[in-house]
């Protein structure tokens, strides 16, 4: 097991390097290059630009720049934000809690929905509940997240006035909680339908197995058969799907945060794009890619832990 984890960790190294090269390449291709902010400034002459380029090492070959950038990056020097003058690391870690709060809450909501409806649909296949859950999941999968957010704002916040329209809210947990409700529902909608379908499929698959028939034949209560015997095995594929969906969840968070003016990494990304703030963009893309690589690794390890039939060497 340890060898398997170590090998997977080593396998992730080329991934990290590949991702960083792509991201570095993309940002090199941006119009104006890394010094775009200075190009529009009438007080900065061509000579100044050349001087800054030399000072920052931007006149060196690309591979030298990349190597130095990657080295500094690994050591935690993420540069200074162009638009705010604050170190990027501080900027990002200032925004991280809001994103984690949003993603965590919607993760729990989606999981709760997926497990209850998924299991119940499978156990009561072809009932009205099953069809209703199917329709709802189908809607969730097909729903454009940002538009769902807009409609909730319109209906719940503006029309009914039950909850705040947008923002984070200052002044204690209660206000933050009130501001959290709508965006976390929107983000949960994004994955809840998919996860519910996977749970349903997983449970249905397992309920057909011989050992379930044996458990029933022993005279066990259906409740015990479902929760003790079937559920654990049917959740194995769900774990993988959930871990692999982190990339999607991150994407959903960008949109949700923008719609609800939620002060997290997603809205920071959009701001950085309009401010042409390269260091911040780089750091956000790098950090989120890194999170995805880690979660995929976690999915692999969890999978092997949960399913003893899989032997890793």
């Amino acid at each position: 097991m340890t060898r398997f984890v170590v090998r997977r960790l080593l396998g992730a190294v080329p991934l990290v390097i590949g991702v960083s090269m792509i991201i570095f390449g993309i940002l090199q291709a941006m119009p104006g290059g890394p010094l775009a902010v200075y190009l529009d400034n009438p007080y900065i002459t061509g000579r100044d630009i050349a001087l800054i380029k030399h000072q920052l090492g931007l006149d060196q070959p690309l591979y030298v720049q990349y190597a130095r950038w990657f080295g500094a990056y690994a050591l935690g020097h993420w540069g200074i934000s162009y638009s705010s003058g604050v170190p990027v690391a501080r900027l990002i870690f200032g925004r991280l809690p809001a994103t984690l709060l949003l993603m965590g809450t919607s993760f729990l909501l989606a999981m709760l929905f997926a497990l209850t409806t998924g299991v119940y649909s499978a156990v009561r296949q072809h009932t009205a509940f099953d069809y209703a859950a199917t329709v709802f999941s189908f809607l969730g999968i097909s729903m454009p997240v940002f538009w769902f957010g807009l409609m909730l704002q319109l209906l719940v916040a503006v029309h009914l006035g039950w909850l705040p329209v947008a923002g984070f809210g200052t002044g204690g947990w209660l206000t933050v909680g009130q501001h959290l409700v709508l965006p976390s529902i929107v983000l949960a909608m994004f994955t809840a339908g998919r996860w519910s379908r996977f749970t349903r499929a997983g449970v249905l698959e397992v309920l057909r197995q011989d050992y379930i028939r044996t458990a029933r034949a022993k005279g066990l209560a259906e409740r015990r058969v479902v929760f003790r015997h079937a559920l654990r095995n049917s959740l194995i594929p769900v774990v993988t799907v959930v871990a692999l969906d982190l990339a999607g969840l991150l994407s959903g968070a960008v949109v949700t945060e923008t719609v609800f003016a939620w002060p997290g990494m997603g809205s920071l990304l959009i701001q950085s794009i309009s401010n042409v703030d390269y260091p911040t963009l780089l750091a956000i893309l790098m950090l989120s890619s890194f999170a995805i690589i880690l979660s995929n690794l976690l999915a692999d390890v969890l999978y092997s832990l949960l399913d003893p039939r899989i032997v890793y060497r």
Partner: protein
Amino acid sequence: MSVRAAALPRRSSLLLDAWRRFERDRLAAAGAVVLLVLAIGAAAAPLFTRYAPNQVDLAGLDVAPSAVHWFGTDDLGRDAFSRALYAGRVSLSIGVGAAAVSAIVGTAVGACAGYYGGVVDSVLMRATDVVLSIPPLPLVIVLSAIVKPSPQILILIIAGIGWMGTARLVRGAFLSIRETEYVEAARAAGCSSARIILRHALPNSLAPIIVAATLAVGNAIITESVLSFLGVGIQPPTASWGNMLQNAESTMTTKPWLSVFPGVFILLSVLGVNALGDGLRDALDVRMKE
């Protein structure tokens, strides 16, 4: 992944069986009808609209939906119904185009990886893993912000984050197909690799590719609408469902109709595509891992 239907003796019977199953699938039929209506509405937009999509009417700004303006008018007095239909041309064709491109790229990558194996396989699959490790939406947002895309470029950008699933799917199919007797026979008969891939292996892995490509249309439509909503996709005055929503967002409380209809069109088209894709999956009897 297993393609059980591929084991049937004749190709025509595969398609015939699939068609019989598909015919009975009412949800898929409903999806197809919805898509067809939207596509006809978009393609033949001039027949259904009284106003040009970019026709400004300063005497009739922000009119609520009525018999004259079915979806109302926007802040420039443009007819929202007409814009929504014309926007369908942009949004639907980008959806279909991006799905087609990503299917082609994914199939090419997966076919090479699965057929040649070895180093080719390792390199291509590591590249696939790398692209899969970057969060897709932030990536396309950054790319679109750099290049200020035309619709054609937007198709390429959206396809750039959508081909990996198909690549893995096709690779898996090819890995098993290349061990079969008929491929060995073809090789013994002196067929070139290209001919084996295109004439023998590809037709036998077509079913999952078709299903994946269909479902990809929905994702591409949503991605386009998100990009346009964030202002880095289709640029005004050309209407797309996403940038209509961007335009409507600031005045949402006073003119809710502007933000309702484009979203309904997006939802309907994605629902239609997904229903169709699910129906195709059942009809073609494809079991998909992703």
